Structures are given as C-alpha cells and as structure tokens.
C-alpha cells in the first residue's frame, strides 16, 4: 500500500491532541500576533499512528537485518540503553536548572569522561560536540587555539586522500589549506610522504588529520613515527576516531601519540543512528591540548565533579577556546553510551573489538577468492575493503552490485568510499553478527558474484526489484529540487463539472 503525505490526508482543523481553550485569553503580544494561517495539517491519533507505522515499514533497520555499512558501524542497539535514557532523572531535567538539582547528571558526565579518557589514554575531554564532524571541528579549534596561544599561525593541514570528507571540510571551515599526503601501495600512509610534506611547508603545518584504523580497514602501522614527525614540527596529530571501535581495549590512541580524537558514540558505543542522527562526538585531548578544551567542562574537585559553564568560573591554566553549542552536549546519548560501556566492561569492550575484527576477516576470507582485495590478502581490521576489479567486463558496477544485494534482503555495503580505490565496497559486519549470519551473507555475496560473472546483468542493472521502490532518479531530484510539498495545481474543470 502506498502511503500519502500528511499534507494529502490531514486537515488543518483536525487534531490528535485534546487541549481546552484557555478560560481567559487577554494577550500581551503587542503587535506581533500572527496574521495568516500556517497551513499545517493535523491527524487524529489513530491516523497518525498508522501513517508513521506504515512509513516505518519501508525502512531497512539493523533490528531486521545485517547492515554491513563500512565505516558506519551498524551494530546492535541495546534497549536497556533506551530505557536508561528515559529515566526521569536523565530525560526530564533542564540544562539550566540549578546545579544543586542535577548532581547526578554532572556525575554522569564525569564518569563517561573517565571511561573515554581511560580507553583512549588521554588527559582531557570535551563532551559537548553534537556529532562526529562537530567533534572534528572542536578538536581542530583546540589545535588552532593552542597555536594561537603559542604565537604561531600555521596554515596547512595534512589530510590523506582516504579521509572522510568531513576532515578537509572541517579544516577549510577554520581557514586552513588542505594538503594531501599520499598513501603507499598497501593502503596506509607513508611516513616519508608525511615528512616530505612537512619539509615542503616548513613551519606552516598546523596538524595532520588521520583516520586510524583507516578507511581501507587497515591500521596505520607507522602511526608512532608519523606522530613523532608531526610533533617535531610543533604540529598536532588529529585522529578521526570513526573507526575506534576496532581497537577499543586493544590499544590506546593516546599511547600512539595522538593529540585529539573525536569518538562517535553511535559507532563505537552503540547509540542508535536514528535514520541519520542525533549523533554525539566527544573529543579526547592530549595533555598539550587539555587547557584549550571548550566550555562547558567538568572539573574534578574534592567535593565531586563540578560543571564549569562560563569563563567567569575558570581557574588558572584553563583556557577554553570558546563554546561549541548551547548547553552541555548530547546527554541522552551519554546515558546510552555509558550504559553500553558499563554493560561490556573492560573485558567485554575488548572482546567486542576482537569479535568485530574477527567477523570482518571471516568475511574477507569467505570472499577474497571471488572478489578483489586492492591491497592483497592481508588481515584487515573491523572492515574489509574490496574494489570492483572482479566486476571487470561484467557490465555490472559497484552501484548495481549494491542494489542487487537489496533484493537478497541485505542493506548494501558502503559504496565508492574510500575514494582511493576504484568502485570501493567497504564491508563492516560488526561484532553483533553471529557466525551463521555471516555464513549466509558470504554465501549470498558469492552467489551474486557468480551471477554477475555468468552475465546475468539484468539482475543487477535493474535492481532492486523487491524493495518498496525501484531505483530512484537522483539527477531529477537535484536538477529542479522539490524540497517541500505544494498542493497540486487545480485541475482544469469544465463549467459543467462544477456543482
């Protein structure tokens, strides 16, 4: 059944909420009262329920199937965490009610921070960033503030081509010039290239932004040497923590020399993706960057943790660069992430990383004879990257292959990212999948590969056939964007048809 838009079924005089008109209404709005209707349709509660339930049934979800989106980490979202976030003591407290009435909330911020700093081996944390990219911005702002404080004004940020798009975008937002550093044939960054770039821009390098494990699913094995080179030129090492989930409990980024790293709580610590957000991107900082951590932050005192909200509350040595957002960050996500960490514990978090890596390698060996590994048959971390060499001469593209997966009941893997290999397919099964689920997934992909090689092209080029929609015309959408609903033009009516 097709489900219309609310604008096509709702009416502005229908409401699904029972409210009584105020007994007295003597407005004090000055001359500001609304002068025209809004045009917002309403639905009675049963209609609204059905509308959104039906919409939901057109969505794929981790709860209903394997979701192997590389670098996006679609893992199980425990409902315990949802329950905890909805405790009135967390869900129903105002960010600006007296601090004496939110002591438990501040304790939670402190406890979450302690876990994240211990897991990353770092000295400070900024909890407030609202998402991963916001965390990147926060980390790079701390770096810029540190340079400014030291009287420096370097202009260059080094970013490898395999980076997420947010990395260069963030650097650019702060006025930095982005310089690419090359990767080696094995998919990792070449420390020599880093040194060369530093030399080429002597004294003008502010930072390097590196994802580790990188977006090819590989651990940057020269990371310590890279950090040393960066530090030697008074620059900072920003690590994109999107893939931190591969190494939690196995290694600590702080021990590897990073100065700042955001943590996507939704990727590593299972807060739900929610169809595209909300995220949460706390940033851990090295000792060198700690003083610049933005407001608000939690200060540990003998009387317990204290929330520092303004510059008036600072103590010597605290030099926050400013504020990333109103209020204190994504509390709802903090509760969920802490519930996840408490549930796993030190042992469970390590096991989860190991299982994530084990599952990815299991998929790798299950497919590597039929699909093509751009960097050879070597172990990967939590995700395995294939390129489209294996589709050569089949008439099937990465996009086609991905869409055909939909008809087999799977969400496609990440496609065409990273940019450094041709027709990339980045598969991250996560630790949430059972061996049986992986076996079925591998068997299905093997079948698809054989089908492509047999020349059953239309199975791919026309896919998906079994989804709520066939392939959608994205070009048309972008050419003359229709971003809001407008009523259809009244049909031409002949005079006779008018009653």
């Amino acid at each position, binding site marked *: 059944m097709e489900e219309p838009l609310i604008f096509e079924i709702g009416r502005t005089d229908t409401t699904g909420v029972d409210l009584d008109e105020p007994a007295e209404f003597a407005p004090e709005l000055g001359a500001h009262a609304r002068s025209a209707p809004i045009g917002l349709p309403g639905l009675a509660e049963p209609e609204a329920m059905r509308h959104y339930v039906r919409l939901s049934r057109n969505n794929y979800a981790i709860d209903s199937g394997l979701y192997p989106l590389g670098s996006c980490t679609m893992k199980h979202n425990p409902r315990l965490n949802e329950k905890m976030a909805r405790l009135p003591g967390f869900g129903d407290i105002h960010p600006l009610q007296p601090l004496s009435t939110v002591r438990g909330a501040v304790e939670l911020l402190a406890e979450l921070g302690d876990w994240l700093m211990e897991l990353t081996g770092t000295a400070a944390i900024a909890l407030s960033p609202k998402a991963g990219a916001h965390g990147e911005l926060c980390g790079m702002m701390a770096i810029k503030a540190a340079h400014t404080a030291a009287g420096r004004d370097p202009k260059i940020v080094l970013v490898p081509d395999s980076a997420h798009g947010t990395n260069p975008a963030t650097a650019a937002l702060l006025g930095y010039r982005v310089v690419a550093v090359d990767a080696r044939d094995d998919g990792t960054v070449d420390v020599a290239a880093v040194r060369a770039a530093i030399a080429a821009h002597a004294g003008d390098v502010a930072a390097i932004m590196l994802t580790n494990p990188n977006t090819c699913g590989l651990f940057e094995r020269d990371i310590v040497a890279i950090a040393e080179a960066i530090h030697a030129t008074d620059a900072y090492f920003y690590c994109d923590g999107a893939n931190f989930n591969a190494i939690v409990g196995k290694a600590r980024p702080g021990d590897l020399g990073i100065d700042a790293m955001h943590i996507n709580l939704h990727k590593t610590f299972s807060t739900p993706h929610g169809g595209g957000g909300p995220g949460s991107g706390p940033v851990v900082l090295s000792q060198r960057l700690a003083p610049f951590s933005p407001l608000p932050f939690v200060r540990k005192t003998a009387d317990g943790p204290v929330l520092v909200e303004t510059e008036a509350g600072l103590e010597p040595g605290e030099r926050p660069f400013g504020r990333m957002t109103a209020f204190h960050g994504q509390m709802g996500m903090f509760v969920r992430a802490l519930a996840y960490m408490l549930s796993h514990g030190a042992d469970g978090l390590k096991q989860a990383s190991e299982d994530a890596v084990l599952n990815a390698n299991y998929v790798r060996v299950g497919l590597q004879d039929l699909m093509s590994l751009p960097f050879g048959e070597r*172990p990967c971390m939590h995700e395995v990257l294939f390129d489209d060499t294996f589709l050569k001469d089949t008439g099937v593209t990465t996009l086609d292959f991905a869409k055909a997966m939909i008809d087999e009941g799977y969400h496609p893997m990440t496609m065409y990212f990273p940019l450094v290999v041709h027709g990339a397919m980045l598969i991250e099964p996560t630790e949430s999948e059972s061996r049986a689920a992986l076996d079925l997934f591998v068997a299905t992909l093997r079948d698809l590969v054989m089908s492509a090689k047999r020349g059953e092209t239309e199975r791919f080029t026309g896919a998906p056939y079994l989804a709520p929609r066939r392939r*959608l015309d994205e070009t048309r959408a972008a050419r003359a964007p229709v971003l809001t609903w407008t009523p259809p033009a009244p049909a031409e009516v002949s005079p006779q048809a008018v009653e």
Partner: protein
Amino acid sequence: MRYLPLTDTDRADMLARIGVGSIDELFADIPEAARLKGLVDLPRRKGELEVERHLSRLAAKNVAAGSVPFFVGAGAYRHHVPATVDHLIQRSEFLTSYTPYQPEITQGTLQYLFEFQTQVARLTAMDVANASMYDGSTGTGEAVLMAHRVTRRTKAVLSGGLHPQYRAVVEGLSGMADDTVVALPADPTGTEDILSRIDDDTSCVVVQSPSFYGQLIDLKPIAEKAHAHGALLIAVFTEVVSLGLIEPPGAQGADIVVGEGQSLGNGLTFGGPYVGLFATRQKYVRQMPGRLCGETVDAEGRRGFVLTLSTREQHIRREKATSNICTNSGLCALAFTIHMTLLGEAGLTRLARINHANAVKLKKLLAAVPGVEVLNSAFFNEFAVALPKVADHVVEALADRGILAGVPVSRLEPRNKDLANLLVVASTEINTDEDRAAFAAALREVLA
C-alpha cells in the same frame, strides 16, 4: 556477553578458517609497544540489573522537572509530549536505521524528512527548510557562515536579545575563521538600537524573537535596513511553539530562519539531543548547510524521495563543502514531525494560546510580589523579571523550597553585574494554577 553472538567455539573455528593462530595476529599492525597486554583499568562487565542500579542511583540524584512546579526555559522548554511520539520513534525501523543513502529501502525516513521540511517551511513562512541541524545554537553558527557565503562579506551583527550561548557559538566559530562579530550588549527590554549598526560591510544581522529575555521583536524594520545595505536578516527563535501565535519571521522579511525545535516532540534531557530548524529563501538553497530531502520518481515512475543537492556536502565536495556537517538530528526531527502532525494547525495554535495565557497569569502573579518588576511589554510564554536581590540566590532558595523557578541571567552572563538580579521565567501548558500560586507565594517568602 549478552550482546556478542560468537561463542568461544565459533571464535576458534573462525580463526582457523582465517588461517591465523590467535586473535592477536589480526592486530599485528599495532606497534608492539602500544598493544595493551591486559585489560584497561576499568570495571568488568555488568548484567542489566546492575547497570540499571548504577544509573538509577545517578538519576535519583537529580530533581526531575515533572516532580516539582517548574518554570525554567531560556532555550529549552518543558512541554507535554503525547505518548504516541515516543512509541513511534522507538520503532526499530526508525531507531536503528542509518542515514537514508540507499533510498529504495529507506523511504520511511525520507518521507518523514520531506514532511518535516515542509512543516518547518510553513511554520516559519519560508520557501525551504533542511532536514534539521544539531540544534538551534549550532544552526545559528551555520546560518552566519551561510550569510557570509551569500553576501561574500564577513561581519555579523548580533542582537543583545540573542541567547548568550548562541552568541558564544557564533563568536567561537567566527573568531576561529577570522570573521568579525559585533555583539550588542544585553537587551532585556528589546529597545536596543540595532539599525544603526548595519552598514555596507554587514553580512547579516542576527535577531532572536521571542528574545532570550522573552521580548517579542519587530523584525520588519531590521529586515528593511539590512536589505537596503545588502545584508541578510537571520531570525532566531528558541521556542517553536510561539510560531502558533506570533507573526512568522518569513512574513517579516527574514532571509534565514534558525530555531530550536526541542519544544515539539523532544524532552529536556539536560540539553540534548535537540533538533535545529533551518529555513531560507529558495534563491539561497544551494548555499544551505545540512541534508536536504527532495522528491523524485523511481524507475517505474512512482513518487519517491532521496537526499539531494549533496554536491553542497562534505562527502562529495570535501574542503569546498558549504559545511562540515554530516549528521542531522533525524530521530529528533521525527519526534518533532509526529508531534506537529498530531497537533495540526488547530492544536498548535491552541497550545500556543494556552502557553501565552499561562505566562500572562504568571506575570500578573509575580508582578504583584513586592519588589518584583516584569521587564517585557510583549512576550509569548517567557519573560524577564528584575528582583530586589541577586537572582541566583533567589533561585537556590526557591529550589530548596521545591520550586524550579527560572534561569538567573547571571548563570549565562556572569560578568555583567547589571544583570545580576534578572531572572527569566517561563510558563507552559504543563503548569497548573497551583504551580503558579506556589511559585508566587514562595517568591514572596524568599524576598521578604
């Protein structure tokens, strides 16, 4: 571990299949010295019951807003959210779905985003809206950057009625980018002379209405002056319910409208996650930040929706993107849209009238307390009062009496001693006459 389906037998079998002798061989690229030998220094795993105990203990140390007479606003508002909203957003298919990059199997998300965009555009009386920002404050920062792109200028003028933390966000971002920010002094009564600060270098004027202090502001003259100088008017609001009753920014000449959408569908949750609303004129759409959902057709000609205009975005344009933003606030936007759909125009306008009527009642009660002065001539559900004592202390004394009475302006503006006695208070539909009477009586007591 309850979340990990692999058993030890599976692990051993899988390692053998992979052809390695131990799991650590798969981590061999990590420099030996940095490899953790044992466990990090953190507690071991806990069962559900223990986790619940631990977190419930923390939660119990907080005073839930719903347990006391509650008048705190200043950018986040306690409204009643229908139970249907929270039920629906917890549907697996909404909660555990990713960004709809594969539109064929995420039409559910895409269609509600299209509904959301249309609702926001209509509420604000603007042409187009995006699929949400993190929140109102970061949205305001993005709006200023967008104005700079549109005007190719770099000076923003901020009203003294702008939420101080929104101002801080703009200042932080602009400061880092070497742009100019002219922030006017705090303006509780809405009487500042902002027109004279607009000149030919001005990229944008940022005005909040209802202001941080609750004052309703006439945006029309500001828009006219701004446009005359080639600048944009960015209109900000933190209380979206006000749009049920007051003239929308789009009807007053705003070029970009940014708002906090938390009031509809979303709880207080100590400040986040919330949902930023962002709307603009059609002509600026390609300079907008954030995700956009657009209508199209599928291979069989059926209507469908996709994320569109992604050439503005970082994952395509990288350092040339309009913003580094990646995530939106999808699930909060869904909550907003469902609540808005349940209300409809009839419900929203009635809700707005109840809010206003309650605030008017509260204003009368508080104004009758000796020494208390209400500062605002026109307001929605929130207003500022001048107390005869330091507001911070009064609020603490009221909290001791079990009343959460509002936000002392000094909490956000501690260095401006002129504001030390100011309190911002809100009254929404959740307050009863008893709540308000208790507040007024306790205030009388504390000030006596």
